């Protein structure tokens, strides 16, 4: 039993090393001289720490610009998506009305809809609004709620005892006050999970920015990195990896601060059987 247990630990640890290696290599290359990793024999560590790469990378692509663009979009999506999804989820959980369950089923169904199907009409629609080439197509839809966030928050609100709401009603509160005064403050944890996921997915998004952004100065980090690579035939990998590392740092912060909540959040979402 002991031996088997140790075997299990060794295998899992080896897999963990495989999972970590790409990130290790990204950081190592980002800190090294370009020659270090372009020739045999391989070096697993840079010959000397070359922090200049980071300075060069930041200037090589307009990193700060892309960073601020991405941050702006992600924060708008996070704010709008979390607020509206919470509002909508209340209507799906704490008020009984005919058609509620049907509409909720349709809501879940939309999660199956591939963006490839809706993207062309959306593009034409946003063009009519005059939004192409602006950030609006990337964040305005979030203010109307997102299906999985509504789903997640609804799951949580269902478990808030109705007595709490009934007694507030007796005290003369209407549903809007209840949502604002009782539900929002008592669901900080699930709201945080929803907010984090919205942030991460918006931060990572590639397809949306690729379609809707025109001007290079408005690119997001994901888009900027991809174009940086393809535009320069002989890619300067040490600079690219420095930019990639910088792009990953905010995600790493989210991970360090909140991975436990994110994992808990995924656990909740899978509660549908």
């Amino acid at each position, binding site marked *: 039993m002991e031996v088997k*247990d140790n075997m*299990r*630990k060794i295998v*899992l640890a080896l*897999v*963990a090393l495989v*999972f970590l290696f*790409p*990130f290790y290599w*990204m950081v190592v290359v980002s800190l090294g001289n370009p020659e270090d*990793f*372009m020739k*045999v*024999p*391989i070096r697993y560590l840079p010959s000397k720490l070359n922090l200049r790469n980071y300075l060069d990378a930041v200037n090589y692509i307009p990193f700060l610009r892309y960073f601020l663009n991405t941050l702006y979009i992600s924060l708008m999506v996070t704010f709008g998506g979390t607020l*509206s999804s919470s*509002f*909508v989820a209340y*209507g799906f959980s704490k*008020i009984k*009305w005919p058609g509620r369950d049907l*509409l909720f089923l349709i809501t879940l169904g939309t999660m*199956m809809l*591939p*963006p*490839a*199907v*809706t*993207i*062309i*009409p959306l593009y*034409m*629609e946003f063009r009519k609004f005059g939004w192409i080439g602006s950030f609006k197509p990337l964040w305005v*839809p979030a203010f*109307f709620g997102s299906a999985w966030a*509504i789903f997640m928050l609804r799951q949580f609100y269902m478990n808030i005892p109705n007595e709490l709401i009934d007694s507030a009603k007796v005290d003369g509160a209407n*549903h809007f006050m209840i949502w604002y005064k009782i539900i929002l403050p008592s669901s900080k944890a699930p709201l945080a999970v929803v907010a984090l996921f919205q942030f*991460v997915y918006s931060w*990572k998004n*590639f*397809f949306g920015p690729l*379609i809707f952004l025109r001007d290079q100065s408005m690119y997001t980090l*994901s*888009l900027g*990195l*991809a174009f940086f*690579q393809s535009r320069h035939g002989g890619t300067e990998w040490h600079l690219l*990896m420095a930019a*990639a590392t910088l*792009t*990953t740092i905010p*995600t790493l912060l989210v*991970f360090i601060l909140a*991975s436990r909540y*994110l*994992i808990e959040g*995924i*656990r909740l979402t*899978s509660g549908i*059987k």
Partner: protein
Amino acid sequence: MRKRRELLTALIFVSPWIVGLLLFQVYPFFKSFYYSLTDFNPIKRPELIGFKNYSWILQDKLFWKSLWNTIFFVLIGVPLDQTVALSLAVGLHGLRKSRLMRSLRGIYFFPILVPEVVMSLVWMLMLNSEFGIVNQFLEKLGFNPPAWFLSTLWAKPMIVFLRLFFVGTAMVIYLSALNEVPKEIIEASVIDGASPTRRFWKITIPMISPVILFNLIMDTIGTFQIFTEPYVITKGGPARSTYTLTMFVYTNAFEHLDMGYASAAAWLTFSMIFISTLAILYAASKKVYYGGER
């Protein structure tokens, strides 16, 4: 009277979603079907041409190629993803709630938070045929490694491979399902003398089957839409060997500006996803165990 007021209040609460649903999902969904029956581009008004786009697509070699590539990604990638995710979850489950378990779980989960573009670029560098670390290492061991993303044989499998780094979500879901398998059932089977392997196949798997089904469907839907990795790494090459359905839609719509044609391809993609989901549900309907409900 009170009921009507409740209904009105409820509708105000869900109204943002109803508007969003109509504007960003329902309308585009049907509109794209209409577009698929037309000849149109951003400067030319749509002109109805019946099902011509569809019949042209079915004669388009590139469409068949992208369909086949996408099916490869689904048929090879999804089972592999799920096997790895479930194996990791079972491994972690055996560690109980220890510090080690939490750290390993965090490491397996982390890539989920990393932009696909970053992951693609790092693997592009590591698998570079001239100076990539993987090939340098393999050559040192005396192998003669292929050029990976430049090889028509290896490009597809390597994209499947790098997507294995994104199994974190599925793994977390499996892990929580494993934690919810009632201990009494496991203990009873131990007393009955069932071997661990038999216990796994006869008890654990059926108990977590709803979650397997959920992960299978989500992964299938996601993989059918695979785009970012091949777009960034290979641009669909070499020789279109990693060209996918979503790339076909994207290229026709936003590079060739043939939006009617692209819409038809998009609807065919949607049909494939829909049919696959139904097929999985049907195949599972007899096998999935719902704990006595329904």
